C-alpha cells in the first residue's frame, strides 16, 4: 500500500464536522420522541404522541400540499430550464454564452429573501402585473395573485431554475455532439435526433436536477411564508411556527423527522424509477 502522509490530519476536521452534523440530527430525533411541556423549553419524557398527532387532517393536508408543490415546482423548473441549458451549451458566441450563464445563475446567489420580496413586488395587489393589466384596461380591479399556490410555485420555479440549469447543462455538455450529427446524417430530422439521441443521453442530468429541485423546494421557507401568507402552507412554515412561535420544540422536531423521512422516501423512489434510464448516461 502506498504511503498516506497526513491521513489523520486530513480526515480529522471532516470527521469533526460530520459528528457535529450527526449530533444536531440526533437531537432532532431525540426531541421528536419526547413530550411537550407547555410553558417550558425543556421537553418531557418519552412519548409517541407527536407522531400520532401528525395524522390529524390539518397536518396531513400540509404534507400533501408540500409534496404537491415540490412536484409542480420540479416539473415546471425542468420544462423551463431545459431550453436555457441547451442554449447555454450550444451557443457559439462566447459573449452570448457568458450572458446566458450569468443571467441564469445570478438568482442562485441572491438568497431566498431578496427573490421572494421581488416576486411580492411583481405579483402583489398594487404590484407590477396588476398595474400593467389595469393600465391596459384588461381588468377593472386587481387580481388576487398573492397567497395562491400559483404564486408560490411561480416564485419557487424561479428559485430552483439556476440549479436545474447547472445540472442539465453539465449533463448536456458531456454528450458527444457527433452522436446527434450521426443521427442526422442517417436521415433523422433535428426534432427526431433530439428526441432519440440528446434527450435520452441527458437523463442523468434530468434526474439530478429534478432530485435537487425537489429537495430544495422542500426546504424553502421564506417563499411559502411570505407569498403564501398563511393560505399556502408547507412543512417548513409549520415547523417554524411550532418551534419559534409556540416553542413546541418536540412537535416541531417530529414534523422535521417526518418531513425528512418523506424526502428520503420520495428521493429513493425517484432513484428507483430512474434506474432503467441510467444506462443512457454518457459515462
Amino acid at each position, binding site marked *: 500500500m502506498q504511503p498516506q502522509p497526513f491521513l489523520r490530519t486530513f480526515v480529522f476536521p471532516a470527521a469533526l464536522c460530520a459528528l457535529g452534523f450527526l449530533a*444536531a440530527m440526533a437531537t432532532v430525533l431525540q426531541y421528536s420522541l419526547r413530550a411537550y411541556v407547555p410553558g417550558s423549553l425543556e421537553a418531557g419524557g418519552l412519548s409517541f404522541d407527536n407522531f400520532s398527532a401528525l395524522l390529524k387532517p390539518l397536518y396531513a393536508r400540509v404534507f400533501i400540499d408540500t409534496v404537491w408543490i415540490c412536484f409542480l415546482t420540479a416539473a415546471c423548473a425542468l420544462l423551463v430550464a431545459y431550453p436555457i441549458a441547451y442554449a447555454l451549451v450550444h451557443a457559439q458566441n462566447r459573449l452570448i454564452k457568458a450572458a446566458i450563464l450569468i443571467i441564469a445563475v445570478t438568482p442562485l446567489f441572491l438568497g431566498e429573501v431578496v427573490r421572494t420580496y421581488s416576486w411580492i413586488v411583481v405579483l402583489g395587489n398594487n404590484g407590477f402585473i396588476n398595474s400593467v393589466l389595469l393600465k391596459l384596461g384588461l381588468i377593472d380591479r386587481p387580481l388576487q395573485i398573492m397567497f395562491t399556490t400559483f404564486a408560490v410555485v411561480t416564485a419557487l420555479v424561479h428559485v430552483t431554475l439556476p440549479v436545474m440549469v447547472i445540472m442539465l447543462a453539465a449533463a448536456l455538455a458531456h454528450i458527444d455532439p457527433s452522436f446527434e450529427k450521426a443521427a442526422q446524417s442517417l436521415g433523422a430530422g433535428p426534432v427526431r435526433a433530439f428526441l432519440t439521441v440528446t434527450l435520452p443521453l441527458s437523463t442523468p442530468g434530468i434526474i439530478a436536477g429534478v432530485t435537487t429541485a425537489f429537495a430544495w423546494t422542500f426546504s424553502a421557507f421564506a417563499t411559502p411564508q411570505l407569498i403564501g401568507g398563511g393560505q399556502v402552507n408547507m412543512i*417548513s412554515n409549520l415547523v417554524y411556527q411550532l418551534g419559534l412561535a409556540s416553542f413546541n420544540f418536540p412537535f416541531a422536531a417530529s414534523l422535521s423527522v417526518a418531513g425528512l423521512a418523506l424526502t428520503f422516501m420520495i428521493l429513493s423512489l425517484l432513484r428507483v424509477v430512474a434506474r432503467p434510464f441510467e444506462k443512457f448516461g454518457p459515462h
Partner: protein
Amino acid sequence: MARSAFQRLLGIVGVLAVLTILGFVILPAAVVTLAAFNDKAILAFPPETWSGRWFAKALAYEDFRSGFRNGFIVAGCASSIALLVGTTFAFALDRYSFPLKRTLEAVLLSSLVVPHFTIGLGFLILAAQIGWARGFAVVIACHVVLVLPFVLRSVYVSLRNLDQKLELAAASLGASPARVIATITLPLLAPGLVGGWLLAAVLSFNEFTASLFVTAQRTQTLPVAMYNYVREYADPSMAALSVLYIAATATLLIVANLYLGLGKVLNVESRR
C-alpha cells in the same frame, strides 16, 4: 447542408423560447429596480416621481448595517473553515483509502438534501442542550455544515483534473510530501480553491432558513434582518437594498467569470 424552412422556423421558436424564459428570470430584478427609485412609499408602476432616497434610508437602517457586519463575520469564518475542512478531506478522498471513507463522504454531502429548517432546528436545540449561548459559534458551525458540500465538490473536481505526474516529479527530485503539497499541489489547485471559497462565502452570506433558527437579535445576519423588515414594513427601502444586492452579485459573477471561468467552476463547459 441547406437548412429547410422548417429547421429555420424551429430555430426561431427556440430563440424566442429562450428569450422569454430569460425574461422571466430577469423580470423580478427589473421590477424591483423600478420600485426602488419610486419616490412614494406605495408601489406604483410606472413611478410618478423618481428619487434615490430609499437607498439612503436602507443604508442608514441599523438592522441592515449590523446584519451586514454579522453576515460578513459569519460568511468569512464559515467559508474559510469549510475551505480548510473541504480541501483536506477532498485530498484524502481522492488519494487515500481509510475506514468509513464513503460513509463520511455521504454524511457530509447529505446536508445538501436535508431541509435547512431541520438543520437549523437541530443546531438550535443542540446548542441549548449543551449549554452554548446563541452566539456566533452556533451560526458558524451550522453554516460550515451547509456550505461544505459545495467546497468539497469544487476542490474534488480540481484535484481530479490535476496532473499527478507533476507531483511525482517533485517527489522524485527529493521534495518531502509536505513540500510537494505546498509548492505543487496547492498552487495548481488555486482556481478550484478560490472558486470553492467564493461559492461558500456567497452561499453562507445569503443563507436564510437555517440562520433564522440559529441567530439571535445580536447575531442576526442580513437575510434575517431583511425578512423581518419585509414582515413589518412595506416601504421601498427593501427594494433599494435588493437592487444593491442584485448589482453586487451580478458584478461578482461577471468578475468571477472573467478570472475563474464560471463555466469551469460549475462544470457546465463542454470538454471538447
